């Protein structure tokens, strides 16, 4: 490995899966099958990460100013995990004329054990080799941990259908987890579903032969969700501080500051779904439509009742809160063949919203103003639509000192425009009080999982060529660019090359507060003098949400493309191969999104996304050969 290798994070995983299945078909009762299966999986993972520093440029002169940090860093981690799985079940199926029924009962156990160890060392400004031993020993850190968890469950299911036309299913699960206190480990989760395949009706088959499938579905049932941290039911002790009992040494203190959480158990998720599936003209037009509601109850929360200081500890978590997700799913498929050209298109889209329907802590919450309530109250409110506040530009940038001094609106929450500089954007004083504060925010879609998401897959083949394309997209979301991040603008005096189009002085750095200085305009406002009494970052322009820090996060991306060519069988067989295929694939080849997001990954989230790696375009050329 040479000195000029780039940043990387590589991982390799070796997995050994061992499965054993035994099936016993009872000779005495036809339709009864007993199966036992066991799995023993062993996974080793290794991860090597190299983080090197990168150059920064002076914001006045555009010259190379230095590196973001003085060090290079290499880390390595190894982990091992073992999964043990066992399942026993008895399945009985019986069909009498058009009556079909099945019954199943089973039990399963899963145990997972894992352990890992990792180490890291830094290099100074001179990076040598990517091995732990090459780094500076004084910077060495290491860590390691083990885990040991288990779940178990029983399942029972009965299904019945009449001629594949009327379908009914009843199911019950009884699930256990190690997370909770004895007595709170097990939860019972029943469900049922009904189906009606209209297309099986004789009058449909007779009159509408192109209607290959049309099915109405309804299902309603519970599943369990594990919440809270494991072993919180034990009164447990953590370390805190040191005390000297004998000169020259100290003893670490251990304390407990929470009661045993013996009351918490599973959260129940009730899923209700009504759906329609269809298939016309032998799969030429197919699809499905679902409308669903998912209610999660018994979410972990603390009782809002007030308790005196004398208890000495806060109340335990209990199953208290409730939330719901409501949404639509649409899937449309189209498959066709024209001569030797086959193609297949699958579109899927989801629109889903979430809200908290009961929040215990709201009972005692105090809101000091309607604004406070508007921004802080969450119970019963659909999430995301108005949780991110941002200023609105009222038009144009301040072109110079005259305009700044003449502005009737104060931008500094003070009596003078002390921190203003040319190039700053004019902001709409929404509440008309003459001062720009967070009360002037407009609220918009927040930066979270987008409510509207879609995917499009197109695949086609012609003779020996095959092509597949995979698009993803999302809407009703905003992304926040943190200007204080390493790629930000306004906080550090060295800026990323993204920000070279900014208001700056024609003569390089002189004095930005000189009223006679000549300015060159740009998209970004001028920077204040770093280290002066005015910290530019504290100004709304850099520090708060603006149209250039809160941008529409909608996007469509060509996430994957595969183009393949299979060599003709008669050729490959001559060289002893059974098949050979040449494939060219690429990922993230095309992204349509807001210009400001282009350097980043619009699918990324939050802080990581801001300072993280830009989206990676990948091309791969490969040959698959089978002998």
């Amino acid at each position, binding site marked *: 490995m040479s000195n000029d290798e780039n940043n990387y994070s590589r991982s390799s995983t070796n997995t050994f899966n061992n499965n054993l299945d035994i099936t016993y078909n009872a000779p005495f009762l036809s339709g009864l099958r007993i199966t*036992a299966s066991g799995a023993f999986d062993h996974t080793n993972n290794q991860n090597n990460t190299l983080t090197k520093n990168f150059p920064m440029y002076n914001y006045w002169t555009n010259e190379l100013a230095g590196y973001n940090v003085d060090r290079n860093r290499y880390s390595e981690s190894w982990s091992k995990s073992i999964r043990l799985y066992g399942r026993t079940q008895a399945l009985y199926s019986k069909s009498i004329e058009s009556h079909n029924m099945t019954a199943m009962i089973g039990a399963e156990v899963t145990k997972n054990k894992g352990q890992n160890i990792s180490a890291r060392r830094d290099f100074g400004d001179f990076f040598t080799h990517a091995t732990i031993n090459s780094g500076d020993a004084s910077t060495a850190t290491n860590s390691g941990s083990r885990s040991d968890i288990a779940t178990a469950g029983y399942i029972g299911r009965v299904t019945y259908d009449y001629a594949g036309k009327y379908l009914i299913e009843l199911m019950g699960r009884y699930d256990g987890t190690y997370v909770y206190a004895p007595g709170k480990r097990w939860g019972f989760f029943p469900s049922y579903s009904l189906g009606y395949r209209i297309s099986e009706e004789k009058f449909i088959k007779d009159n509408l032969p192109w209607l290959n499938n049309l099915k109405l579905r309804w299902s309603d049932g519970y599943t369990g969700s594990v919440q809270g941290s494991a072993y919180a039911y034990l009164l447990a002790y953590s370390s805190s501080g040191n005390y000297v009992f*004998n000169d020259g040494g100290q003893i670490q203190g251990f304390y407990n500051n929470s009661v045993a959480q013996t009351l918490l158990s599973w959260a129940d998720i009730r899923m209700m779904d009504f759906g329609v599936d269809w298939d016309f003209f032998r799969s030429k037009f197919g699809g499905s439509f679902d409308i669903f509601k998912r209610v999660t109850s018994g979410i972990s929360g603390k009782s809002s009742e007030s308790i*005196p200081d004398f208890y*000495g500890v806060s109340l335990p978590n209990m199953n208290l809160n409730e939330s719901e997700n409501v949404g639509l799913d649409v899937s449309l498929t189209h498959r066709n063949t024209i001569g030797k050209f086959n193609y297949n298109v699958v579109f899927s889209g989801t629109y889903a919203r979430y809200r908290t329907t009961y929040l215990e802590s709201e009972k005692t919450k105090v809101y000091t103003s309607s604004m406070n309530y508007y921004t802080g109250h969450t119970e019963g409110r659909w999430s995301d639509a108005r949780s991110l506040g941002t200023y609105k530009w009222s038009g144009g940038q301040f072109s110079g000192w005259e305009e700044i001094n003449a502005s009737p609106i104060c931008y500094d929450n003070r009596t003078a425009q002390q921190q203003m500089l040319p190039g700053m954007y004019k902001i709409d004083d929404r509440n008309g009080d003459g001062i720009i504060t967070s009360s002037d925010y407009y609220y918009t879609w927040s930066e979270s999982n987008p409510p509207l998401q879609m995917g499009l897959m197109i695949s086609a083949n012609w003779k020996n060529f095959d092509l597949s394309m995979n698009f993803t997209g999302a809407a009703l979301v905003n992304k926040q660019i943190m200007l204080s991040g390493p790629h930000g603008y306004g906080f550090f005096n060295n800026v990323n090359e993204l920000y070279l189009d900014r208001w700056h002085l024609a003569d390089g750095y002189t004095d930005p507060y000189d009223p006679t200085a000549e300015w060159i305009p740009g998209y970004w406002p001028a920077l204040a003098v770093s280290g002066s009494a005015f910290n530019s970052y504290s100004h709304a322009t850099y520090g708060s949400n603006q149209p250039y820090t809160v941008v529409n996060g909608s996007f469509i991306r060509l996430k994957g493309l595969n183009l393949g060519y299979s060599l003709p069988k008669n050729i490959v067989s001559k060289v002893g191969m059974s098949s050979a295929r040449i494939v060219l694939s690429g990922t993230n080849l095309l992204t349509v999104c807001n210009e400001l997001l282009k350097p980043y990954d619009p699918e990324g989230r939050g802080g990581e996304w801001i300072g993280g790696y830009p989206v990676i375009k990948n091309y791969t050329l490969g040959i698959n050969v089978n002998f």
Partner: protein
Amino acid sequence: MDMKNNIFYAILFCLSFGLFSCETTFDNLEGDLSRMTGEDMVSTSAGIERLLSYLYQQIPMTTWASSDKSTLDATDNFTASYGGRPTSFWSYSVIRSINNFIIQIGEAKDKNIISESEYQTALGEALFIRAYCYFASVRSYGGIPIVGESLDDKYDGAGNEGLYIPRSTEKESWDFVLSELDRAIAALPETNTGGRYRADKWAALGLKSRVALYAASVSKYWNNAPIESSYTAVSKQLTYMDPSYANGYYDQCIDACEQIISSGRFSLYMPMPASVAEATHNYHELFMSRQDCEWLFGRSYNNGVATSSNGFDANNSPTQSHPSGYWQWGRTSITLDMVDAYDNYDVAFGGVDGTINTRVDGDETFYVAQPKVNFNPSIDYIKYDSPDAPFVNKDARFQASVIYPDCQFRGITIKIQGGIIPPAGDPTFYVNVSHTLNGITYWTFGAELTTDCSGFFKMDDLPQSNWYSTGFGIRKYLDESKPIDYSQNPWYDIRFTEILLNYCEAQVEKNGTNAGLSKTYLNQIRRRAYFLDEREATLENILKERRIELAFEDDRQQTLHRRREFVAAGVRKHALVPVVDLRGSEAKWIFVRANNYPYDTDKTTGLTYLPIEYYGGIPNYVVNKIDPNPIQE
């Protein structure tokens, strides 16, 4: 059919085996690898030690002269703060930890994990720490809710009646602390083999002596700062002590002191010096390391990690002694009021009044408010030949405890000067100007560079906290022999001299002048400072000796509070501003009594402390469903 049944039973067996194995699956896991269970913690004495480490960390011990800055004896450099109650305590989560610990060690003893004697020691330590916490609580709030056992199982989610603990009366609270200390004294060994910084019988007796004296004083002097009985807390005796209670507490104090003294384990450190210089050296040396003859209880900062100890030397050494790059130093200024209180030696090494003489007419009651504006050059000040002349004949303990103008520290002559009077023209204060006399250049601050002087820099402007504002700084605890950036000197929380002084005060308060052995002990303490005369053990003499001997040991604020002497309208802290006077044929130094705190907001009437302020506001009294204190009504 038989076959069918067999298979049926086989399936049933498989499933029930599944059930069985599922439950054992959960029980045979490694468990919580990130934390320890209570059982784990008390399964070894090392675990118990770690629980105790946390409890010891929670002791509300006031350290390093921090509370003295709220009294007339010392000040932070940029404020003239006065008032504030002694360190308080209201952490029922700590009380819960202690109560749970007591249960746990009991269970460990029952399981024979720890021996009876290990149990007794751990129990004694827990009771000692809990008593210390409640002591801090009672002296701040009066009667308090006493949680004597774990309430973990009292939460029922339906009213939680068991969690609401009413306030005990102030007397009941004091009595509780004292009786708990009696339990601790009975349980603790004479020598705690777990470490010299853990409580033993003597620590508990020493604390009892302090607590009993506190309770006695509050009782006897409650009417010095009476609060009307129209306040609920007073009418319910939650913040009330009757003078008739006093003698009982004085007896408890005397008894505890006598047990300590008669044990023969303790003595004054270096009681018979041969000179003032030796006495000075000894007294300073006492605080540099733990001297077991005076050590009843305290805290070590010698943790084996040089870089994580306390920063007393770094924060409090004078500016001149600091290498560049430090950002705070000289943080404890000693007031002129305190300096005046130290006696001078007469020719036979008897004690005489040590008030600094500044004026020819002998009027030492006048203080110039803001010398820069109000200094009157026509007043006849005594002209001294050197800046240190007024201080060199003072009590050895002054020499060991206070940095004064022109004294030596770390081989440097410490310059503390605030004004200059030129040969002709107006004097200058707090602005560094120079004038020349006989070919020698003199500066306002005693030196040209601010890094070469230690006092009064920018007093009239933005006060700089790194230069003494009173003319004096703390020397006690500063260790000139060690690097300046860390301190590992121990903190004496309870030392033998305090026990002697507690004894003297209790005896004299209860039984009158010279009662018991009070005169002997008083003069032993004075002899250690090389005072060769004898003083009568009057209350006044004992209290003065206490102020001097325990100066900057976080005792003064408590003494003034318990004796209800904190209440005073118009108190203020004073400074002594050395001024170089060039009006004569050679340079002389005059000393201006001044009152010049920039942030002293009420310059005409001074600072006040009201009777109701002796009791702090009860935290969360509405939620806690208890009565508030007078200050909250």
